[in-house]
């Protein structure tokens, strides 16, 4: 299957107008529409309380939607109890059964499905091999390190060949280095098995590393669902722009539209060309969003359509790049990531400096959806 086939195929999981409230007053999830493609790695990303975990729990069957329907393939699963959904799940704290050995933990879902003993043993061995812990079958979970427990939890969620695998912030308890290794490991296992994975996290770099697509949640609504590249380069609104990666925001008013671009008057009086994000009306307020690494300095800024003047407020040397804080007119600050090799010793604190931003990389967004 190639990518276009994937897109045309029947969605593996469908959320249609799904709502969830716990107290009858506040909607944790409001009007959720989401198609999960077969075989993709989809991440639900958002700040805590944004409804992403509730979404996952509704899919797993531990929460019931207050409204709308959830389909698995073409079957509505709203009223299917969780143990009949055949969905593997990796929990935040692994939830490995402490009174069973690793092998018994893996055997558990297979024994319930009444598989033959020989088949169970073969599957357990294979699952342990997939996570490279073949020798640990006789250990108890508490005798393993956090990373090993994590891998066993993954193996247990995969061993019974589930329809799809859900992961609820499974890497949250690991230290940074181990977390990064596990991210790649899970990604590779996903690629190898071609299974559908729905992953919940609040860590945006984790989401960018692992996912085919990312759904960004806020206040119970999906703000944008897209590939990591699109999400970073073409954020659909101000929230996504601020939530994913570092962002500079400049306030202004839209003056006129010219096809793909618009002219915006910044609050300090300067006029700039920007790509149209979700702002269309002349006269409305806009936030201009630009990534720190997309701002050019001095000589590099000569070719840019938008050039602004400012003063260097701070320079931080970070080895491969410099972080430069530039104050523009009107006390507006920009943070700029500049390659160290090009700019080292070219300017100093307090120097006047030119910054340049290409209109393609300056996105005019509606400020009303605040971070």
């Amino acid at each position, binding site marked *: 299957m190639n990518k276009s086939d994937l897109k045309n195929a029947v969605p593996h999981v469908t959320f249609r107008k799904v709502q969830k409230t716990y107290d009858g007053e506040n909607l944790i999830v409001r009007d959720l529409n989401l198609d999960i493609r077969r075989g993709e790695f989809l991440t639900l990303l958002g700040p805590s309380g944004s409804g992403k975990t509730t979404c996952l729990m509704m899919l*797993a069957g531990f929460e019931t939607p207050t409204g709308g329907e959830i389909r698995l393939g073409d079957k509505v699963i709203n009223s299917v109890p*969780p143990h009949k959904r055949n969905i*593997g799940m990796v929990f935040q704290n692994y*939830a490995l059964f*402490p*009174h069973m050995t690793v092998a018994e933990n893996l055997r558990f*879902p297979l024994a319930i499905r009444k598989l033959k003993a020989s088949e169970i043993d073969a599957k357990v061995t294979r699952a342990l091999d997939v996570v490279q812990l073949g020798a640990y079958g006789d250990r*108890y979970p508490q005798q393993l390190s956090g990373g090993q427990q994590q891998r066993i939890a993954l193996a247990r969620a995969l061993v*019974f060949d589930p329809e799809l695998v859900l992961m609820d912030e499974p890497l949250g308890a690991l230290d940074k280095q181990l977390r990064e290794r596990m991210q790649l490991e899970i990604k590779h296992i996903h690629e190898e098995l071609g299974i559908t994975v729905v992953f919940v996290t609040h860590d945006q770099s984790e989401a960018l590393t692992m996912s085919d697509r990312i759904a960004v949640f806020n206040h119970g609504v999906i703000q944008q669902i897209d590939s990591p590249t699109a999400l970073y380069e073409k954020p659909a609104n101000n929230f996504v722009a601020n939530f994913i990666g570092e962002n500079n925001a400049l306030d202004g008013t839209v003056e006129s539209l010219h096809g793909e671009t618009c002219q915006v008057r910044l609050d300090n009086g300067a006029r700039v060309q920007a790509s149209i994000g979700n702002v269309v009306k002349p006269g409305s307020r806009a936030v201009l969003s630009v990534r720190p690494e997309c701002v050019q300095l001095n000589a590099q800024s000569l070719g840019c359509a938008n050039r602004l003047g400012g003063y260097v407020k701070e320079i931080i040397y970070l080895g491969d790049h410099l972080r430069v804080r530039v104050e523009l007119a009107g006390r507006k600050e920009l943070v700029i990531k500049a390659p160290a090799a090009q700019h080292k010793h070219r300017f100093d604190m307090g120097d006047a400096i030119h910054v340049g931003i290409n209109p393609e990389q300056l996105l005019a967004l509606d400020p009303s959806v605040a971070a």
Partner: protein
Amino acid sequence: MSTPSTLTMPEAITAETPMSLKEQLARAERLKKLKYGALILPLVLFLVLTFIWPIAALLKRSIDNPEIVSAFPATSELLRQWDGKNAPPDAVFAAFADEIVQHKGSPVFAAAAKRLNMELPGFRSLMMKTARALPPTAGASAREALVEADPRWEEPATWQYLARNASPYTARYLLASVDRKYDDAGNVVQADADEAIYVNVFARTFGMSAIVTAFCLLLGFPLAYLMATQPPRIANVLMIFVVLPFWTSILVRVAAWLVLLQSEGLVNKALMLFGLIDQPLELVFNSTGVYIAMVHILLPFMILPLYSVMKGISPSYVRAAVSLGCPPIRSFWKVYFPLALPGVGAGCLLVFILCMGYYITPALLGSPKEQMASYFVAFYTNQTINWGMAAALSAILFAATLVLYIVYTKLVGGQDMAARAR
């Protein structure tokens, strides 16, 4: 020349302090241990004086047999060498007559006579009669004087009773507690039917304890589960209801049950009012009353250990089991229950052990048929002042408790292998 100086440094240190690192550590730790030891010393002394020593002394009472040895030391000494078949030699008669004369009318003599009377009814009057006939008239030997006083002194069987108790320790009380006794030849045999009650008493004690424990578990487990799964606000309210009875004296609670359960009591009145029964149920002065009150009193001891264990079981375990395809009820048994087992064990052990020693509830709410082992302990201490029997019955209860505890730690110890690795 910095290198040579750094090389000699460690040598210099060891030369100045011949003490090894281990000794230094031990010395440093010793002071700390002494400090901590001093802090708990008052408690240790208190426990030793009021708990460990009395228990040890009481347990010793169950095998103590001092009466004969202290009244007749010389006779006892001689009787220990006696073959027991023919009448004892003259020396025994002489020593015995001497010691009777010496202790006649003293409490030591009375205690010995009472002790012998326990072995053979009528022995006390024999002793009194003999004492009155002594000392022997001039010219008569001790043997003649004794036989003159009562011809039974000629029979070896009479002396057997003295000889059997000529040692300071006896297993008699312990044997009596399990319905066994010594026959005339000194063999352990089944006690007579009218004396053999203690095996039944112990069986009843264990049986009632088991039933009360089972009811406590049945009633306590769901409540503990509810408390462990509710949000803290509700759990705290439930907890208050669980511990509330703790703040009331047992005696008051038992008396309250007496009032509630009697035939004119609230429970019977209410049941009759609703037309559920025509005449009052007999709820008190029988096993029903004892069970109701004991389950009520002991329920917190089941709920608290269960709750503390269940509180630590993350709900994600059962969720994980369900997500793996296991139906909810089966998940509960396969995953939740095994994890709650240490709490079940601790709660059952606690309730069972407390039950075994229960006295006041069966004494007040039960009929004679419901009296448990501790009733007889109280009976022997308060009414017949037979410390030996009281101590022997207590010793058996104590031993049963210890065995239970050891079995429990063995079982849970194996279970907890994984928990210890944590």
